[in-house]
């Protein structure tokens, strides 16, 4: 069920310094979030699609990554064209929709996908643990980062426990239905997972104090920035300035 995505380390984005990658992604996302002009979002699209290309991703994976965002977008398309007041245009027979409503839905669709493309290029080229370390370097509270590490570390262990338990249930003839019996069985399954992880937490903590843990974590790894990283980041920033220029200065479209 859970699978860590294999990262293609040969791509340019994969070798891009994770700290700069995060800063770039955050700046970009915030910028697009406040933008309202389609032309500016078009420029943003050019940057995010370039980043996706530099990530060496398969087309299919990109589409898959965009799916969750677009399920929400489609949900909104059912409402916005009808719920915004404005000039009515005829779509099909008696069905009409407002031009303003469609405009809003289009804007949201563009923004959501452009931002998600950038996020995909970040998520698909950065190891989760590396992302955590980079966030720590960028000043995220150390408690939060360590919490993040432990959560990620044990997701896979607990998931395999979950699969074992569920298989054991299936072997004894359990078929999920819409019934109280099903819900109670799932409740026990969840309860068992939680209790086991509670016990595991105790053992992990014991193993850590056996190795002298006293509440402080030390880290071995560091990042090294190269000139190439600076160039990529610089280009990203320049392009974001162009986006801002189109949005606020030229005010095109």
């Amino acid at each position, binding site marked *: 069920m859970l699978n860590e995505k294999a990262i293609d380390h040969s791509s340019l984005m994969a070798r891009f310094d994770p700290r700069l990658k995060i800063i770039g992604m955050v700046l970009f996302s915030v910028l697009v*979030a406040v933008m309202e002009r389609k032309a500016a979002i078009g420029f943003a699209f050019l940057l995010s699609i370039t980043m996706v290309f530099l990530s060496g991703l398969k087309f299919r994976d990109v589409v898959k990554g965009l799916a969750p965002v677009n399920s929400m977008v489609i949900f909104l398309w059912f409402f916005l064209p009808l719920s915004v007041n404005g000039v009515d245009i005829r779509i099909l027979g008696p069905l009409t929709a407002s031009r303003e409503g469609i405009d809003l839905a289009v804007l949201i669709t563009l923004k959501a996908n452009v931002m*998600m493309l950038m996020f995909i290029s970040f998520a698909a080229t950065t190891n989760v643990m590396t992302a955590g370390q980079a966030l720590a370097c960028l000043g995220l509270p150390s408690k*939060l980062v360590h919490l993040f590490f432990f959560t990620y570390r044990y997701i896979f262990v607990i998931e395999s426990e979950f699969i074992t338990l569920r298989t054991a249930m299936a072997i004894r003839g359990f078929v999920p239905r819409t019934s109280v019996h099903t819900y109670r069985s799932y409740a026990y399954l969840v309860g068992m997972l939680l209790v086991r992880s509670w016990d595991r937490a105790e053992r992990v903590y014991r193993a850590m104090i056996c190795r002298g843990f006293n509440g402080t974590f030390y880290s071995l790894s560091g990042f090294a920035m190269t000139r190439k990283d600076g160039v990529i980041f610089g280009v990203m920033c320049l392009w974001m300035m162009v986006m801002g220029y189109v949005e606020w200065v030229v005010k095109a479209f």
Partner: protein
Amino acid sequence: MHISEGVLRPEILAGTAFLTAGFVAAGLRRIDEKEIPAMGILSAAFFVASLVHVPAGPVSVHLVLNGLLGIILGIRAFPSILIALFLQALMFQFGGFTSLGANTLNMALPAFVCWLALGWAGKPETGSKTVGLVGFLVGFFSVFLAGVMVGLTLAMNGEAFYPAAKTAVLAHVPVMFIEGVLTSSCLLFIRQVKPEMLAGQAGKKSRW
């Protein structure tokens, strides 16, 4: 329900992110350095449990379990949920980066409220009938409130979003009942098997 990127207006994103940051900081202050392994492993268990799909008539819904998390973790549910949502974004592209604050607030605030109102039931002396009832209420209201929060967040985006907001709230209704039944049995299970797990935040004492 995750609100995705690009939907909410910047001022709503900023406001919810600000509130979430405050609650997360408060939650972190409540976690002792030595409790981090335990908190992380429990968060991982919740992350996995929330991927479980249960049948609901013709479709299947995934569990939320934010109420249960609130009862066990108290205010520390905030950092735990933030991390879970961030991981969901990284691993499955659910939600996204800019909407992280809003989504965390929508899930964690109900968890926190349930703990404030009903957290006392985790004390070991509480009878099993009471725990069962409280479990149902926790499961029911944590999802109900989460639905209302999602609806409110969307509605704040502008009048045009009202119909979508209402539908989003309604979509939570079947899940409320399922989570109620499930959380009830789950609390009873934990009460029987590992009562100290519930007692921790009921007495607000640390584990070790």
